[in-house]
Each structure stands twice: as structure tokens, then as C-alpha cells.
């Protein structure tokens, strides 16, 4: 018997738009558009300091969005990203602070331990989220709001809301203000992270399993994949990336702060949605998400340069998010009709 592969001729403009969105996504053309627009219209955009800021914002948003994307791919949400940023920041600062008293001559070693402590605390908090959601099968959205409340409460009890000073100089110099070829060090880290996430999703069995759990959890389980392990894994990754952001903030500010990361979770979700990650799970492309991050960062910068009140800027992000979600929905509906035929 023979089956021709589904090759419905693409005729209508609407269909063509959907096909384009499927392949390339919304984020790349949007970010190209806004970057070009800024280059043409705004001379201050290319100023070195400004570029530096844009790239830093881009890196921070993209890192957090990568973790969020993995969680969204499994069909869930992680709203505890902001709390984990704060937790990692305070942990890194406190641990390196305390260790400096013990090993005053081994600053580098102390800094590395501090960073490791921050990152592992983030990953552990993520595993905790994953356990609640996979084993107790709690609603991911409300459960991560609850764990946010717990984590933030704990951070405040620990620090009384006061910044933890005394972060090792190496950290502020190398991580916070580090530059390679005149670009922020964090940018390189972000690009590497994008590549790693892409590689894991596309080239390893574990990545296939993440996509499968998001696409059809029951089928994945029957195929011998443990959804629990996958869900714990993606939440751990989300926690880890959030912690990375937290450590970076600590290094940049020179102190551990509990008020950091308030907007990070929302920015991460917005970037992921603009980056075309389906909210029903099963698909996601880190490269598109990266462009989602770039778009958000440049829009923020444009609004700043235009002296739009920062209070009013959120409105733009709200509209962008709704528009992206709407397009995601529209293309999905088209895909489903295709499947029925």
C-alpha cells in the first residue's frame, strides 16, 4: 500500500503566513525589524554604553526564558523563577561572605564555591517544584506561586530584607563587569547556553523524551519514559537558569539582594511565548526563544531612549504578550484542522 505524505498545496496568504510562522517564527522578523528601525531612527542606540546594556538585558531575559521554555515544552509553567533568582543571589553572597572568613587567602576558590552554592540551591529548589508537580500532581501554576511565597519568605527571614554585602571582588570584576572582546561576558555564556539547550532538545534522547512528555504524556509513559524524571529535570533546569541570573545580578551589584528578579518570571514567559513555544507543550525552539529575548530587550531599550515612563512600558509588554499568544493560538487551530483532514 502506498501513502503520499501530506503535501496540501499552500495557496492562501493566511496559510502561507501560518507556514512561515511554523518554520521561522515571529521572533526573528520582529527583532530584525525593531533592530533595523532603531539603527535608522535612533543614533543613541549604537552608543557603546547603550549596546552594552541592551546585550546584558538580552542575556538575562534569554537565560531565564530558556529554563521557562523547557518547562513550557512539558505543558507546565514555572512562576517561581523570580523567587529563585533572589534565593540564588542571597545564597551566593552569604556563602562567599562566610567562606572568606575561613579562607581569607583563597578568594578565587571562595568565589567559585559561592557561585556553585547559588546554582545548586536554584537547581534543588527546581527539583522541589518538580516533585510537587509530578508526584503530588499539583497544578503547576498555583504550586509554583506557593513555592515562590515560601522561598521569598525564607529569603527575607534569612536576610531581613537587607542586602548581603561583601561579595568577593573577583566576582564583581570577572562575572559582573567581565568583558570579552568588548562585549559582556554574560553574552557568551548565554549563547553557549542556547546552543546546549538546542543540542539537548534536538540531538539527545533526553531531549526527545522532554518533547514527548509534553506532546503526549501517556504515550511517553507507555514507551518507558518516566514523566516524573522528565518533569523534575525541566524544573531543575529552570531553577538552574534562574540561579544563573541571580548569581549574575549579585556579581553586578556586588551584593546579594532579596528584591531581585521581581519581573524575571514574567519576562521569561513573554520571551518564550514570542519565541513561539506552544503553551500546550510538545514543541519549542531555543533559537526562536533567543530572538524573543532580543526583541524584548530592544523594545525595553527603545522605550527608555524615547523616555517613555517605565510605569507605562509594561503596557507595551502586555500587548505584545497578548498578540504573541493570539498568533500561537491561530496557527495551532490551523494545524489541528490540517490533522483532521
Amino acid at each position, binding site marked *: 500500500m502506498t501513502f503520499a505524505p501530506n503535501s496540501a498545496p499552500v495557496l492562501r496568504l493566511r496559510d502561507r503566513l501560518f507556514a512561515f510562522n511554523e518554520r521561522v517564527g515571529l521572533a526573528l522578523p520582529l527583532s530584525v525589524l525593531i533592530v533595523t528601525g532603531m539603527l535608522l531612527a535612533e543614533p543613541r542606540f549604537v552608543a557603546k554604553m547603550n549596546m552594552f546594556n541592551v546585550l546584558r538585558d538580552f542575556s538575562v531575559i534569554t537565560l531565564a526564558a530558556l529554563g521557562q521554555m523547557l518547562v513550557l515544552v512539558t505543558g507546565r509553567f514555572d512562576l517561581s523563577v523570580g523567587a529563585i533568582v533572589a534565593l540564588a543571589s542571597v545564597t551566593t553572597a552569604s556563602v562567599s561572605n562566610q567562606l572568606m572568613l575561613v579562607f581569607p587567602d583563597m578568594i578565587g576558590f571562595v568565589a567559585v564555591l559561592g557561585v556553585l552554592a547559588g546554582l545548586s540551591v536554584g537547581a534543588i529548589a527546581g527539583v522541589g517544584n518538580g516533585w510537587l508537580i509530578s508526584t503530588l500532581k499539583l497544578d503547576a501554576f498555583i504550586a509554583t506561586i506557593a513555592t515562590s511565597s515560601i522561598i521569598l519568605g525564607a529569603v527575607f527571614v534569612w536576610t531581613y530584607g537587607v542586602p548581603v554585602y561583601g561579595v568577593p571582588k573577583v566576582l564583581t570584576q570577572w562575572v559582573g563587569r567581565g568583558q570579552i572582546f568588548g562585549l559582556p561576558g554574560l553574552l557568551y555564556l548565554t549563547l553557549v547556553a542556547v546552543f546546549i539547550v538546542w543540542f539537548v532538545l534536538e540531538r539527545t534522547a533526553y531531549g526527545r523524551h522532554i518533547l514527548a512528555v509534553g506532546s503526549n504524556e501517556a504515550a511517553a509513559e507507555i514507551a518507558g519514559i518516566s514523566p516524573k524524571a522528565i518533569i523534575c529535570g525541566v524544573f531543575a533546569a529552570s531553577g538552574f537558569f534562574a540561579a544563573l541570573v541571580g548569581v549574575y545580578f549579585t556579581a553586578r551589584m556586588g551584593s546579594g539582594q532579596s528584591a531581585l528578579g521581581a519581573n524575571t518570571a514574567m519576562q521569561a514567559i513573554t520571551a518564550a511565548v514570542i519565541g513561539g513555544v506552544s503553551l500546550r507543550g510538545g514543541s519549542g525552539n531555543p533559537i526562536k526563544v533567543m530572538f524573543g529575548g532580543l526583541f524584548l530587550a530592544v523594545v525595553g531599550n527603545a522605550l527608555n531612549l524615547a523616555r517613555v515612563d517605565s510605569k507605562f512600558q509594561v503596557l507595551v509588554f502586555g500587548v505584545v504578550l497578548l498578540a504573541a499568544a493570539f498568533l500561537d493560538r491561530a496557527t495551532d487551530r490551523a494545524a489541528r484542522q490540517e490533522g*483532521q*483532514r
Partner: protein
Amino acid sequence: MNDKQQMQAALGTQDEHVLQMSDISKTYGVNRALDEVSFDLRPGEVHVLFGENGAGKSTLIKVLTGNVRPDAGTLTINGQSCGFLTLRGAKAAGISAVFQEFQLAPSLSVVDNLFLGREKTRRGILARAEMQDQARQVLAELGFAIDLEATVGTLTRAQRQMVEICKALLLHASILILDEPTASLNDHEADALLDVVRKLRHRGVGIIYVSHRMREIHEIADRVTVLRSGRYIGTLPRAGLQEAKLVEMMTGRPIAALYPEIRQDPRAMRIRISNLSTVNGAVKDASLTLRAGEIVGIAGLMGSGKSEIGQALFGLLPIRSGQIEMDGTLIKPRNPSAMLARHLCYFPPDRNVGGLAVSRPVLENGSMTGLSLNMFSRFGFLRRRNERSEVMKAMKAVRLRPLDLTLPVGSLSGGNMQKVLLARGLVRNTEVFVFDEPTVGIDVGAKAEIYDLLKSLVEKGAAVLMISSDLQEVLRLSNRVYVVTEGRTVAELCGDQKTEDNVLKGFFGHAPKIRKEGVA
């Protein structure tokens, strides 16, 4: 099980059993799904499992695949007693199943799905070329042409079926379970599939084949085992297979006793559908008529669009073109409430998904269709006493057991859930009933009760459109039968033309021409 044993299983002689299940029992709550059922399988044979929905076939299969843990009984594979199987254990023992509900991840590609959970890797990196080679080999062996990189979500049902079968074969199964594999295939596809089954049988694979289609059973069955209400009824050898005998074993009563004699008395034309097509493309060109006082059946394969005709008529699916007339006037079914107001009610096939709010009580499910009626509410507030008495009346009419309006519907048996669904048509003045799979998954007793209800509705002058995959039911209860293939009504059968053969011919596209206007 190691490789050596697998080899033995594959080369096993005819008198040696690859599988023996004895006295397997499984109880869900008060419901006995399996009651001391025994079953065996020899290498290189096709053993058909026959029975109604709910007879215990799927539970038996799930025991084999490790999805269900039985309460009692023994299981022997290749002469080794192996206690009970886990999902992993079943796979290790070479058991592989293709279910009717596909176990595929729609957003992944074909090749990803084929190797899901057992991907080939080189130093942790997916060995894509290797997987594609293997997949291509199996596809070629089976004679399927599917694009390995296509996203499964864009494939047709038949193509997905092929992917499932390839998946099972890639495992080198020694026991292969096929659960109604031809339910969504056309003639050629089904023939090709049967060829594959013969090929596998020749290779020594033991095959458990679930099917209702006599044609297939005649062609490939070596033995047929019949189950009914969770009990083992008997096993027939290939010689001496007779349809009447099988159906009698399956239902536990002579065919005539299950299906009531319905006095069909077609009167005024209620519904006339001409050249209907839906926006989603599932219905392409459907025409039919329905009169008061008759049952009109619609037969079709899974995914043929038969169900969508009912949905479009009820305003659940947007219509692209075509006309619907009700009592001689053109209508546009905008939404269900408008159609309910026209005294037409559609009863969806899947009680749990589309039909009932299972966590809510019988009362609320029963009055769902009537909330806007003056009988049930006034000024936006419910008239709870009326509601209770009307729903009670309807539930008594359908003989709901237990007759308790406060129970959540999810706690009832399939048959009683179907009765609650049916009662929704009775709480308001319904004259045209559209049933989609009215007896799927319910036991014989409940089935007979539903048929009696249909009989009394029709004989009181209601018009009934019955969309069903159960050929016996459609053929024996309907006054006329339409056959639907690929969204088109390709044949209208009445009187002596109503035979299984004619329906199947219609499915596969060489049917007698459709007549313009059908009155028996």
C-alpha cells in the same frame, strides 16, 4: 527473557505455547472486568479475540502489556511462569501491542515516534542515520510509504496506524497484539495489513487479533476465542466458524432476541440534508432524509465523517455549503441551543469526553439541556422542585439504576451513563433524536434496554438518526441505512439491500448508486 529464549519462541513448534493465561480475574470496584478467563497462544498463529465492547478484551490485553495488574490467575510465557508483568517486563518478554487509541506524540516526527523511549545513541548523541535506516527497512518490508520526517500530527489516521504497527515490529515482538487494526483503514490498506499479518505469522510470531469484521476473521483466524461480560465463553477452530454462532456466543442470546422488532412507519419528512460539507473538511458531500416514525442508520468507518454529519446538523460544526431543511423550511444550525429549541437533540458518542459532566450529579446532567425552559427556570433562577420531579420522571423512563439523582455520574456503569445521556432528550419535548454510537461500551443487558427505548420513541412518532460503527445494530434496527465514506454518503440501502456485504462494499467505494429519494 534473553535472546536465546526469544529465538526459541520464534522457532517454537506448533504444540508449544508461547503464551498461556489461566483463570485471570480482575475487579474494578464492584465491576468484574475479568472472571477466571483463560487464553493461550501458539507461535505462528493468529488467535482472534471476539466480544462486545466491555466484554473484557481490552482488560485482558492490558494484563498482557503490563498496564493492568490482575487480582488472580497465572501467566506463562514460553513455558516460564512469570507472575505478573510490568510495562517494562512485558516489553522484555517480547510482547508488543497496537491499541486503537494511538500511543503517539503528535508534535514529534515519525522516526522520533518509532524509537521513542529506546532511541539509538552514539556517545549520548542521537544516531539519526542509523534509526532512519532501520525504520526505512521495516517500512519497506511492510510496503508502507511514509515520510520519516513528517510530524505525526499531520498524518491521517491510517498513516498513524501504520506508524504504530512499525513501532511494534521494530521491537521484534514474539507476541503481537492488534486491537481492531483495520477500523480506520480502507479496503486496499486493510488487505495490505492482512498480508503483513500473514507474513508475521509465517515468521513464527504469535498474533492476538481483535476484530469484529467477519471477512477478516474468515481470512486470517486460526482460532477464535469469545468473551462475554468478563467471562470465557469458548474457543472455535478455524473450521466451523459461523457468523450466527459467533454472534450468539458474543451476546448470549439468539440474534433475534437482542434486537427488538420495530414497527417502522415513515410519515412526514422531518429532515432533509442536501450536499452538506463542513468547514473542517470532514464532511464533503452528504445528503440524506429522515422521516417521523423511522430509524435511519448511518454506517461508516472511523474517521469517515459520519459522526460529523450529526454534529453539523446540531450546530456543533460550522457548515461550508449545502442545505438543511427541517419540516420543509431551510434552516441554518447555528448552535446547539437553537437546535434544541427546534426539538432536535444530538447525543454524543463519548460519554466521558463530550457527553456528561462526570463529576456532577445525575440531576444536573439530566436537566442540562432544559435549563432555559420555563419548566426549569424563571427569571434566571432555577425551579428546583420542578427540576427534580422532571428529571426523576425521565430517569424512571430510561430505567436508571440506582435511581438516585444525587450520585455523581462518573460513579455509574457505562450503560447507566448512557441512560442519563438519553434522558436529556426526554426532559424536553424532543422529536428528532440523533444518536452517535448509542451503545458503545455498554453491556448486553443495557444494550437491549436502550434498543427498547428506541423502539418506543419511534413507535410514538419520533424521528431517529442512528450513527453507529456497530454494523449489526445499524442493519437490524434501521429502516434505511446510509453508508458514508470519506465524508460522502455513497449509498442508501433499504429493504433487502441492507446486508453487511453491501455496507462493506459501500465503505470501499464500489457501492450501488445512491438513490435520489428513499422511502421504503
